[in-house]
């Protein structure tokens, strides 16, 4: 028998209020199963249907809305990693899902590496200094071949300025993070992992969108350099989309 969730569990999983879920039920967006207990009838939801709803969402738009929000709340619980242990647990789930499918061989380990470097960077550079909501939004859709990560941290400019105080713009900071080896180990260790992310994107014909502050780039296999631009949208932290 399919696993059933009560309305509180289902709404928490979706990151919406129980009232919104009742409205969705009335509109037929997701049907509840009514079970009578004593005098009252309660709504239950099929867990597989809720999971499918999450997969069908536009995970990139959801990440952008959350990362840019002026009144931030925790993102959808299904995608939210409040700490590094939850993040790495979900990273292992991604790895397992990729390894189950032979079409992702042999690049599955590289996809996990890239998601791991970007997500762990968020934790490494913001621990104890999150401006508002701590943690990372981490979602993927293997059918659409996309992985999305976002944080509401301090952004690359602020954290990289500790190792390189002459940085003044988000554009410069983004370029430095993806192209320059930072050898200084004090006061903060830098893994240089983003340089490897760039290398893998180019070598394996993947695509990467990355933004911090108002600076962003779109990188794809065959590109010869990072074309960093400034945009109207602003993210205090970082947001990344890997397409493979």
């Amino acid at each position: 028998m399919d696993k059933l969730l009560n309305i509180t569990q289902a709404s928490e999983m979706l990151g919406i209020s129980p009232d919104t879920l009742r409205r969705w039920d009335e509109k037929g967006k997701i049907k509840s199963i009514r079970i009578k207990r004593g005098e009252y009838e309660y709504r239950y939801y099929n867990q597989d249907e809720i999971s499918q709803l999450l997969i069908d969402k536009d995970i990139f738009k959801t990440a952008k809305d959350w990362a840019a929000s002026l009144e931030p709340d925790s993102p959808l619980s299904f995608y939210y990693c409040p700490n590094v242990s939850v993040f790495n647990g979900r990273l292992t789930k991604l790895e397992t899902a990729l390894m189950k499918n032979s079409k992702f061989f042999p690049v599955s380990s590289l996809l996990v590496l890239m998601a791991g470097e970007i997500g762990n960077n968020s934790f490494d550079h913001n621990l104890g200094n999150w401006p508002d909501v701590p943690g990372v939004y981490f979602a993927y859709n293997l059918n659409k071949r996309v992985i999305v990560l976002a944080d509401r941290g301090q952004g690359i400019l602020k954290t990289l300025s500790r190792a390189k105080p002459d940085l003044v713009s988000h554009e410069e900071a983004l370029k430095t993070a993806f192209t320059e080896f930072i050898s200084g180990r004090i006061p903060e260790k830098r893994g240089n992992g983003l340089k490897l992310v760039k290398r893998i994107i180019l070598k394996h014909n993947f695509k990467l969108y990355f933004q911090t502050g108002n600076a962003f780039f779109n990188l794809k296999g065959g590109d010869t350099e990072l074309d960093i631009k400034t945009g109207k949208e602003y993210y205090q932290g970082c947001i990344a989309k890997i397409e493979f």
Partner: protein
Amino acid sequence: MVIQLKKFGTTLTSRSFGQEAFSAFKPSLQDVADDESIIVDFNGVNTFSPSWGDEFISPLMEIYKERFLIKKTKNPSVIETLLLLEEIHGFSFNYID
């Protein structure tokens, strides 16, 4: 001494977990003889990243230098990460079959 990295996990991607692994393993290095090699075996590891590697592999390389050996692997994340660590630190790993 052979260090089987799968004993630390199969997804080796976080700097903090790399630090933890090295701290936990460090006492075992006291048993290494002066002329003994340290061999790192990646067999069973699914994903290996620069953050973890820089906390575990780089310090071992700095301590044992030419006595530090790595078993060859076909895992792309291991190959790419080791190349990056060589580039960052300016050293060359010695590989064995």
